[in-house]
């Protein structure tokens, strides 16, 4: 290596040093620490003890953990289809580019930039059975958040409400990337609106749909703030999502090992779900428009 190249290399490492420190200490090291913690029993006070796979055994047979996996899966199964369909519908309407469309686009994104925690508090008030705005509007007294059947859909509705504008933006960008000539060609061939949507628009939006689904699933599986603000996991554990369970295990019950094992489990679950989505989309043809 020449002296010049050596000097350039040194510059490179120096420039990289701070971020390497950050990435190493706060992103890579924690992955190893969480794996090691998941094999120990520790309550933050008495010394930690190695217990092998005991934590995994105990969480896998814990009904509360099973419940939280079920609750989180249900939450994802409600939120993802609803927000994707609504987001796509909104994007198609905005894409007609009637005057004022930009204003609507901006309005729809507003909830996305606000803190989920703060919005959760606002919605907790709106759903309040006696003083809330929703029951005042309906003229009914419905126990939204303390009902075992309504609580999860209510929390999911808030998640959809705050994310749908964001999904819309992505679909709008996707629609913009479809060349207008393709639509003209389809119309020349006599395709009606419905056929154009199913056989042209939707297939060409596939990369966008994939992105929106994958990122949506990953973030929905980790939902915490909205639940914390609205229900704290209640009633009777009906909104006790995995992240809330991890929080409870670690910082309310002080079982760090079990909490770490649960975090590892969630990580594995996310990897599996993401790979499954990738496989599903890979089987279908994607079209390169670039």
């Amino acid at each position, binding site marked *: 290596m020449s002296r010049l190249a050596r000097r350039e290399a040194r510059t490179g490492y120096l*420039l990289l040093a701070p971020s390497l420190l950050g990435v190493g200490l*706060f*992103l890579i090291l924690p992955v190893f620490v969480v794996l090691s913690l998941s094999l120990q029993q520790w309550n933050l006070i008495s010394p930690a003890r190695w217990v092998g796979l005991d934590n995994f055994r105990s969480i896998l047979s814990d009904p509360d953990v099973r419940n939280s996996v079920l609750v989180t899966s249900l939450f994802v199964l409600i939120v993802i289809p609803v927000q994707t369909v609504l987001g796509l519908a909104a994007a198609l309407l905005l894409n007609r580019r009637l005057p004022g469309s930009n204003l609507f686009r901006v309005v729809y994104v*507003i909830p996305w930039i606000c*803190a989920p925690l703060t919005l959760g508090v606002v919605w907790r008030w*709106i759903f309040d059975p006696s003083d809330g705005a929703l029951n005042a509007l309906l003229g009914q007294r419905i126990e939204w958040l303390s009902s075992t059947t309504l609580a999860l859909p209510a929390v999911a509705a808030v998640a959809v409400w705050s994310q749908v504008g964001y999904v819309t933006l992505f679909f709008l960008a996707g629609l913009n990337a479809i060349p207008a000539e393709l639509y003209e060609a389809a119309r020349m061939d006599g395709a009606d609106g419905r056929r154009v949507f199913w056989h042209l628009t939707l297939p060409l939006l596939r990369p966008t749909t994939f992105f929106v689904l994958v990122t949506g699933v990953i973030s929905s599986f980790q939902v915490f703030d909205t639940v914390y603000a609205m229900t704290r996991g209640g009633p009777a554990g009906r909104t006790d999502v995995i992240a809330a369970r991890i929080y409870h295990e670690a*910082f309310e019950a002080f079982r760090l090992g079990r909490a770490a094992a649960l*975090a590892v489990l969630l990580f594995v679950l996310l990897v599996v779900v993401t790979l499954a989505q990738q496989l599903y989309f890979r089987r279908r043809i994607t079209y390169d428009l670039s």
Partner: protein
Amino acid sequence: MPMTPTSSPTRDRQTPSDRRTEPAARKIAARRVITNAATYAVLLAGALVTLGPYLLSFLTSFKSSRQFARDGALSVPSPPTFDNYAALFGGRYDFIPPIAITVQVVVVVLAGQLVFSVLAAYAFARVRFPGREALFWLYLATLMVPQIVTLIPLYTMLSTVGLRDTFWGIVLPFVFGSPYAIFLLREYFRGIPEDLINAAKLDGAGTLRIIWHVIVPMSKPILATLTIITIVSHWNNFLWPLIITSSEKWRVLTVATASLQSQHTGNWTLVMAATTVAMAPLLVVFLVFQRHVVRSISLTGLK
């Protein structure tokens, strides 16, 4: 009338053989008016559902508890009162420290992220050194680790070194730059012509001068995007500050709002004043820079 048949854009493209008769064209125009009206109706309903909660919570924050109890959740405050805000600031509660802490957290994280991400991205984009590609892939790989997985280890690590319940505990995991920012910046920097950098080198400029005088001025749009992403995500951050702090002294706005809400269940006029205060600064930033924010989101998937 914008809907007259002659102004229809599809008309020009029609071949003479299928040119429609006047009544048919009028029918098409009428149908278009109806679809447009339906589109607006749906879009408007969406906007109403989106903005309703903001409007209602805003109105509620200007009511006294008595007005709220008497007139209900949907009424307009008459007369509007600032009592809830007075109580939040200097009255029974002190919401100024959480705002100050949040601002400090955002400023420190923003400064760190911008500076260190720019340096790292420049190294990845324009400096040759052994292991560059491998390190870049390592950075990218960390993007796949969900935040919730690193939470517990970060807590135990920072507690071990005595940073639990401190300002640095809140910011330290985020100040050294983020792989995501580095990735976006690297892509952008690679688009800057190498000739410009070489010319600066010939003029005897060192690396830091090149970054500051050539790269940064040419990268303003992406830097603005990163600034917005960082401000929004750290203003809104809740779980990490909730975990790493315990004393009232280091409460950020989200944590303060949550604790106010749980201490004063039922006192909704006060709680809605708190949520309004917590959201207002970001909403102002958003409305001022909305064009840029909207573009940033679709560019990067702001989270």
